[in-house]
């Protein structure tokens, strides 16, 4: 066996994937050729290095619970799916909205590779929403009050829809900052759940179909339409949140 052939097959040889005939050939060649023999040692060293580096990522335990629940299988531990171990005693829109922002911010942090600038924005936004009375800037269930309120405060006009007919109640709106820019937030409720709908203009004009994700018990759905980016965040279940999104997108 010649060096060229050997070098092509050396990986497979070390992996034990070569047929016997060629394995024997290579074995013989390695005894005679110091170059190929060194290459063989290099490959084995690399293999050992990878093994010793412990590069296997363990699945987080919460993942199994999510998957089991999604399939309808019993969860082996006692923890309930949507239970938050840090449920705050104060119920209400402000708490849920704060958490929604924080998790939305965490989501944005994870999606962006350079976190520093965004982190600062997010922290500012978060701290602002913690100030009592700052969850909702304009308190009104009337779309004809909420939408114009954004004029003069933002350089774009977000669509504000009345979805009372299908059980999503407009609560009000506020300004916020995400991704270094001011954004509109239109706040809805369904039963005890708050839905924050973040809206801001897109850089591109591309429409994008809705993409859903979830973070630690909160559901997020985002889409782009007619030059506006939308993010709906809530602890409402995905099915109803999708109804909300569908109605928004009409």
């Amino acid at each position, binding site marked *: 066996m010649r060096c060229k052939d050997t070098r092509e097959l050396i990986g497979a040889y070390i992996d034990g994937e070569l047929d016997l005939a060629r394995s024997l050939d290579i074995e013989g060649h390695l005894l005679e050729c110091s170059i190929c023999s060194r290459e063989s040692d290099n490959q084995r060293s*690399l293999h050992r290095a990878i093994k010793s580096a412990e590069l296997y*990522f363990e699945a987080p335990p919460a993942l199994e619970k999510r998957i089991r629940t999604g*399939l309808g299988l019993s969860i082996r531990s006692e923890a309930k799916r949507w239970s938050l171990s840090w449920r705050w005693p104060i119920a209400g829109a402000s708490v849920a909205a704060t958490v929604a922002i924080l998790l939305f911010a965490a989501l944005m942090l994870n999606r962006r590779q350079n976190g520093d600038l965004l982190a600062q924005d997010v922290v500012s936004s978060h701290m602002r929403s913690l100030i009592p009375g700052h969850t909702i800037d304009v308190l009104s269930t009337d779309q004809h009050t909420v939408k114009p309120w954004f004029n003069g405060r933002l350089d774009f006009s977000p669509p504000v829809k009345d979805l009372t007919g299908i059980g999503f109640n407009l609560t009000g709106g506020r300004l916020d900052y995400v991704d270094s820019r001011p954004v509109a937030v239109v706040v809805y409720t369904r039963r005890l759940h708050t839905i924050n709908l973040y809206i801001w203009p897109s850089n591109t004009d591309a429409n994008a179909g809705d993409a859903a994700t979830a973070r630690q018990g909160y559901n997020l759905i985002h889409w782009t339409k007619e030059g506006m980016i939308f993010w709906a965040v809530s602890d409402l279940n995905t099915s109803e949140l999708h109804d909300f999104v569908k109605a928004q997108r009409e």
Partner: protein
Amino acid sequence: MRSLEQDKLASFERAVLPHLGAAYNLARWLTRNEHDAEDVAQEAYMRAFKFFGGFRGGDSRSWLLTIVRNTCYTWMNQNRSRDLTTVLDEEIHTVESEGLDPEALLLEKVNSDVLKRALDELSMEFREAVVLRELEEMSYKEIAEISGVPLGTVMSRLARGRKQLQQVLTGGKGKRARASNFSRP
């Protein structure tokens, strides 16, 4: 008496759920992000259950990882298409990397972070092959099935991926390896 659906669920739980670790690990290496990996793994499992009726036995881990891999690529296409562009392969194919001392690979001293970064920087196809081989210890045949490519392609991707790793670990990117100039036997 249990319904067919319950039987299917029980069967799925026995055969496929135990490979969650492998599913997550592969998704984590391909998407390079733990939250994305969780989402992909979850979606892959939902799809797997949907297709479970067509699973005729055999290696359930391979079967599941085929779905995971496919779900990763689809997901990346939809969400992070710019990450799919292939990193230029810097290897020079016919070249001898002469003078590479195995000790230079510093196996016990290799920083885990350095290796992780090096693996992260491989193109997705090379990374996939290396992860399935080195971390999941799958055979070339299994890797070929999961990746949906011929055996020869698996061998090639592995060889090139490993070569790139070696170059990174020995600081070989700066080094120019000499063209072979010795006579071949």
